[in-house]
Every structure is written in structure tokens, then in C-alpha cells.
């Protein structure tokens, strides 16, 4: 379910103009050059992509992008339509953080000596739910998954202890309310789209227009 569907019921709960984080989920055919087409939609409008992840989806041959931007609802809605217009794109959803379950993975490289010597570090790591991925004589790599604040907090905490290197992945997200994309796919595969499955994006204002 997209934010748009939600809006029609809870319009006043969402600040339509206010910027916030949106996660755009794009289902698309796996095709060379499509990422560029999608990226252009953002760059043309001078919109910065905060994070972008592309991966296989649960369906063979279909890729899934998670794109995080900080924008207002109207902008996001229009962007989504432009993305959905691309020939290889099957479906675009856009959601606020409340509507998704999301994670980022962070890796931290720290000096093994430091870790070994300073018990506080170990405690710190336990506190942040980190796990050791590699332990060598010279350094150890820890991994943490979580929201930005969590992975950021560990960076802060490790800085005094010789944090050699740090990297964070793009966001991956799953939409809480979504019934899954499989159903939708049947519609796309059908020669002629079935009646009950057709999108109905502009009906939301139905109630209002009749009171002119």
C-alpha cells in the first residue's frame, strides 16, 4: 500500500508539504541502463538521493530498488509517477518511515589491540549488538544492522578507540502493509489487465468533488 492510499483516509495526519524521509520501492525488470534512467529522474529535478539499494527480489528476473530521499509528499508522488512511466518499471511504492521495516548494515574496522586491551570497547560492542565478522592480529571487523541512529551511535562510541574504517550500506526496506508483489505481477503478466486489478490512483478525491 502506498502512502497515497493512506492519505485519502488520514489526510490531516500527514504533513503534505513538510519534508520527511520517504523510501521509494521500485520493482523493475533487470535491465542494463535502467538505473541511469531512474537516477536521471532525480538529478533532473536536483533532488539528492540519500541512499540507493538495488537487489534481486523474490521474483525471478525482477529487481527491486530502495531509494531514500528527503522530500515533501507532493514531490515524492510525482517522482513515483515519473519512475513508473519508465518502460521496464512495473510498480513504484513510496512510504514514510512509519510504514516500513528497514535496516542498514554497518561495518567497523578497529584495531584488535585496542579491543583486546580495553574491556570497555567489548562492552560497547555488546551494548550495540555488534558481531565480529573477522578477527585478525592487526584488526577486527564488526557488523551492526539497524537504523541510522543506531549505527551512527556506535561510530561515535568507537571513535576514541582507533576506528580505522567505517562503511554503511544503503537502506533495505520492506513495506509493513504490502500484500506482497506477487499478486500485482499477475496483472502485469496478463495480456489484458483484469478489471479488478487496475490501479485507481485518482479516485481519492471522490467525496469532495460532489459538494461543489
Amino acid at each position: 500500500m502506498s502512502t497515497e492510499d493512506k492519505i485519502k483516509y488520514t489526510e490531516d495526519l500527514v504533513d503534505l508539504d513538510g519534508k520527511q524521509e520517504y523510501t521509494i520501492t521500485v520493482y523493475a525488470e533487470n535491465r542494463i541502463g535502467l538505473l541511469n534512467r531512474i537516477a536521471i529522474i532525480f538529478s533532473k529535478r536536483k533532488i539528492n538521493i540519500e541512499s540507493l539499494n538495488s537487489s534481486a527480489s523474490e521474483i525471478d528476473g525482477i529487481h527491486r530498488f530502495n531509494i531514500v530521499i528527503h522530500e515533501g509528499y507532493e514531490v515524492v508522488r510525482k517522482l513515483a509517477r515519473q519512475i513508473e512511466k519508465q518502460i521496464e518499471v512495473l510498480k513504484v511504492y513510496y512510504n514514510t518511515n512509519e510504514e516500513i521495516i528497514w535496516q542498514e548494515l554497518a561495518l567497523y574496522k578497529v584495531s584488535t589491540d585496542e579491543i583486546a586491551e580495553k574491556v570497555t570497547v567489548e562492552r560497547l560492542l555488546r551494548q550495540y549488538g555488534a558481531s565480529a565478522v573477522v578477527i585478525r592480529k592487526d584488526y577486527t571487523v564488526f557488523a551492526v544492522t539497524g537504523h541510522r541512529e543506531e549505527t551512527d551511535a556506535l561510530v561515535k562510541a568507537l571513535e576514541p578507540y582507533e576506528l580505522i574504517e567505517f562503511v554503511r550500506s544503503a537502506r533495505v526496506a520492506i513495506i509493513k502493509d504490502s500484500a506482497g508483489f506477487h499478486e500485482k505481477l499477475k496483472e502485469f503478466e496478463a495480456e489484458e489487465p483484469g478489471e479488478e486489478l487496475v490501479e485507481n490512483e485518482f479516485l481519492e478525491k471522490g467525496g469532495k468533488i460532489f459538494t461543489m
Partner: protein
Amino acid sequence: METAQDTIQQTEAKAETSQTFFKGTGSQVLLNGLITEGVKTIFGYPGGAIMPIYDALYDYADKLQHILVRHEQGGIHAAQGFARASGEVGVVFATSGPGATNLVTGLADAQIDSTPLVVITGQVFAHLLGTDAFQETDVINITTPVTKWNYQVTDANEIQEVLAKAFYIAKSGRPGPVLIDITKNAQIQIEDFPEYVKCHHIRSYRPKPKVRVEYIEQAAELINAAKKPFVLWGQGVVLGTAEEEFKAFIEKTGIPSAWTILGESAIPTSHPLNVGMLGMHGNYGPNVLTNECDVLIAIGMRFDDRVTGRLDKYAKQAKIIHLDIDPAEIDKNVKADVGVWGDCKETLPLLTKLVNENKHETWLAVFRDYNQQEIDQVITPELYPEGEEITMGEVLRNINEICDGEAIIVTDVGQHQMVACRYAKFNNTRSNITSGGLGTMGFGLPAAIGAKYGAPDKTVIAIIGDGGFQMTPQELGTIMQFGAEVKILILNNRFLGMVRQWQQLFNDKRYSFVNITSPDFVALAKAYYIEGQMVNEREKLRTALGTMINHKGSYLLEVMVGRENNVFPMVPQGMSVSEIRLK
């Protein structure tokens, strides 16, 4: 290199129907595919990276007419003119590198004006891709923002499927340009090819939705309740071949209707419900009354800023109904109260069924009142000038009197374009061909050549400014060689007129680099064996226009018009449409 000819086992019958397996080169299978798609005319220019395709073309001369343009930009504008006049897909060939980059302006123009094109570019051998090989350019990435779809073929086995997809994508839904870049190895690769199958479905692509009656019902309800409804129509009506359906709708509802310049000739100029042109140089009434109507029904138009002027003051009082095939257009610039997403060929008849018959006489009379003011203050002085100088408007009046609305008028970009759109009369759809969204100077001459191939039975008149003509004059060579009968009418004001008008009105007459000199256009035409003359005096104008139109073959007529004439009315940029100025 093994030549294709050695191994061709193709028979005539196979080439025609592609029924059976076909053994040949990628180039041959491409040309067969084009024939199966119904292509008869190609505009193009050869070069190293597309030579195998041209080599194959040599054997197809009886089925595929190739027009050798003088510049790839000319080729793609010609294909646009062809597509716009005929309603078919325009096809362009160009080589890699400089050939392909010369297409970019035309692609951008076709993209924004929704013109269906299939463009084939040659590319270096696949194994050289990414090595900065001779004439290698990253055509796919350069053209991505200006194509509806593009694809690089590196293996001949992909050609049939990709070509079929290309045609389907170019002409379905909201049409647009599609580019296929074919590496040289794929062009010469010899394979057994299966039967060519046209494409009708792509899993991820929905060219048009199934129409929902709910939208139609909501729209009908608004229209039936409206006291002052107003229709704005655009090229969507033409692209959807919904001219008849559109006419039926406005005739039943009696709603005054105005057009964008790309929608212009969808219904005859003389239709009683046709109240004129929208936008920056549009008619007085339609612009002012946009801000007075109670229901605004936009059909196949996209609320371009040249049409809306200042958006925050645009039709705020009206309920907006927007019919469009492209869902991304609905709510993009103007928020719709009812968005009717669909092909207007389908949505309009459904709507017509649900709306009440009406006449809206008093409301229509308001348009006529405004029109009368415009006639008195602007149109009459423009069409029947009293000064000595010839006006662009009177040239158009004379054309109307001679051609009686039957000609196809192709324009370039500038004042003459606005004057032509404002004053030319049309009886038939697809008669007004102009570069709308991109406003590309240099479009006129090549597009007119293409239009002539698209509509060979029509008189094609290209109306071009002295500036714009100098952007693509080399296409006179194409006319010379292939004999497309184009009437070239240069309206020479010895200025880059439209820019000069802005400088006069908004920059204190600081005429910065708009004073443009011209060669002897008639002598230039003569150098290409094209007849022509120049007129300076009103007494000779009518005869000269008659000579041009009745001449057998192409003809160039240069008319010297007033230097500092302006096009009015005008909505100054950044103003509301209701602040339109009559002078």
C-alpha cells in the same frame, strides 16, 4: 570480411512476409522487420558504423525509400514531420558518434511533443565498446533523458524482438521517440532468424489503463452542473485519433473550446465552438476566461507553462477535469479535481454519453465579445494593415484565401510561428506542424520535407523566419535531390524577431545580438535549382503567394515584413493568463 551477399538465401517471398526462417545478416533482418512494421520511408545519413545496414538497403530500394538528408538533425526533424502529418512512426538511420549526437535535438523535440519515432544508430563493434574507439560515443546514455526508451543491440539475435518492442513503445500510450543502437558486429552477424512477430504486450509497460467509469461519472456530474464550462484541448486528441469523438463531445455539451498549438487543427478553425488559441500569444477571450470559468476540462494537454502563465493564479476558481493517457501528467502542474486517466478515444465517448445536451449561449457570447475586442484592436490592423510595411498576419490572410484551409502548414520557431498558429485556417487534422515543447529553430524546413512524404497529396507550406532558416538551410539539398515539393515561405524581418520583441518590451529596447543579416535566399535556392522570388511590396504579395502555391515543384518565397512588428496579444512571462496584453 565475409560479405553478407555471399550467404544470403533470402527469397522475395520470405522478405515480404517473414513467414519462414530467414537466413541472413542482422542488417537484413532489421530491414525485413521495418517492412513488416509497414515502414516505407526512412530518413537518414550513412557512415562507417552503419554501413552494413546501408549495404543491405541497396537491395531493398523497391520496398524502402531512403531519403538522404544533408544533416542528421534534418533527418530526424523530417521524420518528425512525416510522423506528425501521417500519424505513422517516423524512421531515422544514422551512424555512430557524430551522426548519433546530431540527433539529440530532434530526439528532445520528439520526446516533449510526443512524436513516435524509431531511430536506428550504428555503433562500433561490441568488443570495442568502452575503449573510446573511433566514432564511439555512449549513445545510450546521451539519449536516455530524451527518449521514451532506448536499447543497445550487440547480438543480431536481439534485433527482431527489440525492433518489435521499439515500434510498440514508440506508438502506444503517449507516443515518443525510441532509439536502437546496433553494434557493427550485430549488423553483419549471419544467423537463422525466426519469423518476425510484432509486439503487443510488454509485462512492465501499461500504455493505457482500462478506463474506470467512476472517473467518467464524476466528470460528467461536474460538467452537467457547470454554468461556465470551458474545454482546453491539446495534441492528445490528435494522437489518440479522437477528433470525431472530441467533436461529438463538445457539440453535445456546447462548451466553448480552445487549443494549444499542438492541438490546433484537430477540429476545423471555423467550428463555432472553436474559440481560439491558448497561452502566451493566444487569443484574448480564452486566456481571460480561463480565470472565469467554473469547470475547466483539459483534454490531452499538459498545462505547459507557455499555456498557463503563472500557475498560482491559474484557474483557481474552477473545478479541473483532466483527461490524459499519461498518468504522470495528471496533477503535475495543475491539480485536477477529477483525473480521467485513459485514452481519450475511449474516455470521450463514455463521457459524451453521460453529459446533458446544452448550448451555453450566453457563456459563448462572452467569448465572442472578447473576440470582437481582439478583432478591433489587434486582428484587423494585423490582417489589413494600413502602414506600408507588410505584416506577417496579412501574409497568412492571403494564404488562407488562396489555400482555403486545405494546406499543411509547418512552421519554424519565432514570431512567424505564433502568427501562423494564430491566423492560419485549417479544415483538416494533422495540418499544423510545429515544434511546441522544445521550440526548436531549424525545425521548419526539414519537418516540411518529412510532412510532404507523410502526406504527398497535400500542399505543404513551410513558414520560416530569416533566423531559423539559416539553421538548417542545407536541407534545400535534400529537396533538390529527392524533389519533395515544399513551398518555403521566409518571413524576413531582418531580426531574430521573437527575441527582439522581448528585448523591446522587457529590456528597454536593448537589442543585443538580434540583428541578423541574411544571404540572398532566392539565389541560395537557385543554387539548389529551386525556383523562387522575393517580394517587398504589398501589391505583389498576393500574386507571389499564388505563384508559389501553384508552381509545380518546390518554391522559395521571401517576403520582407515589418522590422519591428510585434505579436499580440501577449501574456508576459510570469504573469497570469488573465493579465494578457492587447498591446
